[in-house]
């Protein structure tokens, strides 16, 4: 029995070598067949049929080689206990595929056919990787004589390709945003313009089809699956639906799920905001201080246990266990990190952290961190220069205030003093876990306020930006307009000025940054989200074989 052990897309004699083990150099790969090649709206693994040529191409091949089975003898393929019921196996008979295995410990093949020639099998996973199945399947061929005596056996091992989630360093191909009408038209116009400049396909999701649920970032997390093929690695796009249970969650099913576009449907009934996509990010590839290597990066979710800002009974809020377990079980971008977000009203990582390309840094990327200290320092500088009466959030009815109005708001300032201590702890956590230097974590000005049920960004949360690197080396950043005081001569937004200075220092003349500020004030910010929350992005993965890592 042979499988594509050397991962070149074909099953050959040479594949006999190392077929029963799995390493970075040898071991066959199979696919969780959760795309929709026949466009019937259902994942291909669900039915017991092979739905056309494209679906057949999704099956990992195994060949039971011609063998003179003794008269009255049997040919049986045993499925390793871990994979039983989690894979499906088809047999190719003259181009027609029929299911020969879906449950149980084994299946048999007609002895006459094995005697007559090679028998071609096609294997798919029909269950996602999980804590109860690591994605490995051992198949053991046993040929027995008529009296049951073992004539010979051969074992092969396959591993299910893991879903790999995108990082902000991957180059965007498509940018999706929900059109909710005039309320977010300014944001859409800005985003569309930046996408055009960056060569990214800009796609508007009709809000009317999704009850104007604009939080598309929260609905799902795009990624990819890489499979071996005769022409090198084969990319299948993938999207992980999150346990949110709100209207726009269906967007990934309706718009992305397609031939060669996987859908991993949500698998928890829990609908806590901690499960949303804004609470799921991926740090780019790195080697951690203790030496662990993360060539595909490392997933980070938000959560933890702590007292609310201002004190009180400690609360525990985390992404639901099923998803955290899933990320760990995938084994490619984990074990995941968990950073403190439980004190935030929404509770998302992207409220205080973002990752951007940083070509001026040796590492090539940097972490952006919300900083009340910086926001306050900038305002204090403005006030010290006589600008205390300058307006902040100018013209925003009901929200406009002044520099002094903020700096003399004792409840707000005391609250932010404590938030900054939390941010200090998060900075230390990143330094310890990721091995980042202090200089690789860039503060950006964000004040927080008590939203009653936790902290929320007081000014538009500039960290919550849309990151668009391009193949040409330019990085476009769509940053929520912080709407700070216009200070200095000529008058410019003091918060923006600080942001520009800090971000531009991360880039070079050859790999520059283009910063575009977007109006998110009433379209996202006052609804407790920002720019990143309102977008979702399909990105190009690096040209890199995960099985080598």
């Amino acid at each position, binding site marked *: 029995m042979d499988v594509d052990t050397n991962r070149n897309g074909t099953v050959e004699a040479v594949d006999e070598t190392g077929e029963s083990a799995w390493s970075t150099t040898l071991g066959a790969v199979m696919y969780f067949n959760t795309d929709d090649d026949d466009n019937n709206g259902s994942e291909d693994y669900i039915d017991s049929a092979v739905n056309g040529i494209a679906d057949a191409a999704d099956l990992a091949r195994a060949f039971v080689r011609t063998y003179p089975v003794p008269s009255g003898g049997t040919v049986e393929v045993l499925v390793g206990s871990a994979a039983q019921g989690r894979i499906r196996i088809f047999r190719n008979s003259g181009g027609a595929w029929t299911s020969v295995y879906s449950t149980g410990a084994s299946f048999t093949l007609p002895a006459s056919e094995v005697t007559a020639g090679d028998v071609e099998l096609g294997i798919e996973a029909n269950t996602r990787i999980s804590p109860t199945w690591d994605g490995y399947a051992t198949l053991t061929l046993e040929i027995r004589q008529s009296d049951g005596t073992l004539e010979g056996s051969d074992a092969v091992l396959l591993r299910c390709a893991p879903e790999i989630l995108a990082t902000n360093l991957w180059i965007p191909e498509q940018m999706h945003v929900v059109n*909710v009408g005039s309320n977010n038209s300014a944001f859409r116009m800005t985003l569309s313009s930046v996408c055009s400049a960056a060569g990214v396909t800009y796609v508007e999701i009709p809000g009317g089809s999704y*009850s*104007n*649920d*604009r*939080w598309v970032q*929260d609905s799902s997390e795009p990624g990819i699956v890489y499979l071996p093929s005769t022409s090198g690695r084969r990319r299948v796009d993938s999207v992980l639906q999150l346990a949110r249970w*709100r209207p726009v969650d269906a967007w990934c099913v309706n718009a992305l799920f397609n031939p060669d576009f996987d859908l991993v449907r949500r698998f928890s009934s829990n609908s806590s*905001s901690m499960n949303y996509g804004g609470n799921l990010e991926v740090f780019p590839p790195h080697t951690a201080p203790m030496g662990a290597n993360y060539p595909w990066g490392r997933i980070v979710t938000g959560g933890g246990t702590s*007292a609310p800002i*201002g*004190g*009180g*009974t400690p609360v525990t809020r985390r992404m639901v266990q099923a998803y955290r377990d899933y990320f760990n079980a995938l084994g490619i971008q984990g074990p995941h990190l968990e950073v403190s977000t439980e004190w935030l*009203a*929404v509770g998302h990582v992207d409220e205080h952290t973002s990752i951007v390309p940083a070509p001026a840094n040796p590492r090539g990327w940097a972490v952006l961190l919300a900083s009340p*200290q910086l926001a*306050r320092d900038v305002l204090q500088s403005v006030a010290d220069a006589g600008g205390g009466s300058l307006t902040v959030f100018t013209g925003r009815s*009901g*929200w406009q205030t002044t520099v002094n109005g903020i*700096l*003399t*708001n*004792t*409840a*707000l*300032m*005391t609250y*932010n*003093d*404590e938030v*900054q*201590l939390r941010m*200090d*702890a998060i900075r*230390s956590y990143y330094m310890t876990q990721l091995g980042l230097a202090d200089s690789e974590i860039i503060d950006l000005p964000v004040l927080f*306020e*008590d*939203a*009653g*049920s936790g902290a*929320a960004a007081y000014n538009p949360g500039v960290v919550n930006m849309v990151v668009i690197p391009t193949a040409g080396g330019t990085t476009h950043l769509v940053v929520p307009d912080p709407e700070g005081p216009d200070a200095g001569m000529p008058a410019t937004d003091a918060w923006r000025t600080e942001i520009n200075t800090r971000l531009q220092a991360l880039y070079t003349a050859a790999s520059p940054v283009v910063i575009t500020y977007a109006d998110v004030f009433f379209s996202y910010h*006052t*609804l*407790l*989200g920002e720019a990143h*929350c309102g977008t979702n992005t399909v990105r190009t993965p690096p040209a890199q074989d995960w099985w080598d890592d």
Partner: protein
Amino acid sequence: MLNILIAALLAQQDVDAALDALAAVKPGEADAYVATRDRVLAFGAAALKDRGAAGRWTADGWVRAMAAEACRVRLENGELARSVDTPRGLLPAEYAQFKMRAPMCTQELVRAGADGVPLLLERWRWTMTKFAFSEGDAGKREEDCYRHAILFVPGQIADARARHFLSEVLASKDREAWRQQAAVSLGQCGGTEALAPLTQTLDAAETPGLREACARAIGRVPEREALDAIRSRLATERDDLVRRSLIHGLGILGSSWGWDSRKNVAAGKADEIRKACAEALVDVLSRLPSEQETIGLALGMVAWPDSENAVEALASSSSADVKDAAAKVLPVLKRALSRRK
């Protein structure tokens, strides 16, 4: 001329009588309140201005003053009154668009400012049943959100007029969550007057949750007496959560950002209290090293320069627990101090 004066005098008596009647409406009697309020509104804003002035919000007179002020705001700022009466964040069609699909109105009500406070207190006392909450659990969540915000707002904007209202809620048999929020807001807006109800409740309440809220509320009172109240109780408090909140309260009381924000307070007072908070925290660290996490946070907030040396000294302590705790607190404190520089 005499006729005009007599008419004005009679009108004043009528206003006062109408306001007396309005203030006398029993809590929760929304229809009676609204009917009586219509009579008061007919007198016009000018007649109400002084009657709702901050100085009239006394222990005996605050209900009447609050009603007068609520009427005045209704007459002078109808748009604000409508927004406070019907916060957008309580409307299902609005909050369905929020990032979390749940009612939320604290931010918009905080931004309504001081003029919104009498309207909110009026809502709490008399007219909550007039609000068109949704049916079932959704309606309960909306009302809970509204009630929480009403208690929350006066503290956020430090509106001392609400201190008697908050004291009343704190002393009531109302839901504990409301009493807890009332305690915190009272600490934020009540000044030294808040200390008596807070310390009495802290010392006498039977539920740890309420005691905990009072413990953390005391730290919101920016006075030396608050520091004394915390220190004296820290030495004897047996409940872990309450003790932790007292420690946390020292951080809030000594918060460097908090004192920076009080532009009208003499620097000497700020330094005196911050220094004392820092010393109290270092002392607690030496006695209760297991509380190092909360102590570290509080010391970071106070960011008093001398505390670095004091904690460094503890890091050489002969007690392994104290030594370990001090070592964990030091980087937190150092970072906070370096930021302050």
